[in-house]
């Protein structure tokens, strides 16, 4: 555990989480959500849980973004609420 790195990662994590909820443009929200997944992956890796970090990197930061972008292309890009 490196405390300054931890604090920076957690601050960015909160910013990414709030942004992913607040953005009206769903494509941008998906990007921010992928960034959120990548930040969580870094935090897992930093805590020594490498297997979980690996899963988060492939699923959270990787394929879920691709699936959501595919869905957005076929539905609406703007959030209605």
């Amino acid at each position, binding site marked *: 555990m490196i405390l300054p790195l931890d604090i920076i990662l957690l601050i960015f994590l909160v910013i990414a989480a709030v942004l992913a909820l607040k953005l009206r443009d769903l494509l941008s929200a998906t990007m921010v959500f992928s960034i959120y997944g990548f930040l969580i992956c870094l935090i897992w890796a930093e805590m020594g849980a*490498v*297997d979980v970090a690996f899963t988060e990197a*492939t699923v959270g930061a990787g394929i879920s973004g691709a699936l959501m972008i*595919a*869905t957005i*292309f*076929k539905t609406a890009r703007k959030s209605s609420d």
Partner: protein
Amino acid sequence: MQKLFATIAVIITGAILLNAVEDFPRFGDPHSPPNSGVSGGSVSSSVHYLQNTYLDTRVPNVVTAVLADYRGYDTLFETAVILTAGIAVFAILRVVRREDEEESAGSEEKACSGEFSTSDSDGEGRHRVVVGTTCRVVVPLAQLFGFYIIAHGHPSPGGGFQGGVVLGTSFILIALAAGLGSALGRLREDMYLRLACLGVFIYAGIGLLSLFFRRNFLDYGALSGLLQTGGEEMARSHGIFGVELGVAMTVTTVMFALFANLSTRGELKGGL
């Protein structure tokens, strides 16, 4: 008004959760119950696994051994959940046209017969040169890396789930660069549906196999006679690898199936 109530609920729940965090042991605390080795008078499970995993299974990566052997049921049903998710998306989205409607789209079908071409029928081909060339380099490496992760789950982080996702992503990359038809030419629909079910079948089958040797379900040590390994430990190691292969098969195909159905609204034609 609704937002006000929601905010109050979130703040109260958050306060309760943060309050509960106080009672947790500090991160890496050597005196916490899991780390000190004693919980309620007996040896705690984490210490038991750390001490016995290598002796029991000959697998250096404790996480893999716990996931696929000690907690084998959990992973079996996780794989079943992934298969269920794939089936659900298939059932909701997939549009199957009748034969006579299919004929009008027959010419398109031929173009999708598996050629790894960057030129698409819609004339956008020349815009895809960069993407296509990159994809041609990256896809084999990604697939090799995927197989490496699956096979190397024993000594290093990795395993069926992660490797399966990487393999599935490589097919998605083909679909993005050369059109969905090109990817479907490599992994046809009937193929991936069968492989997805076969993955869970392999997992459950290895579990059932140990029942025939009068042992518990998913007790891979029973396979030592069948696999001609010296002791039960190596049989467990091989059993874990077989199970990981099943998981990887299901995950790979379901990830690709999700993308194929979501990106075409279940038509499996055209793509993004």
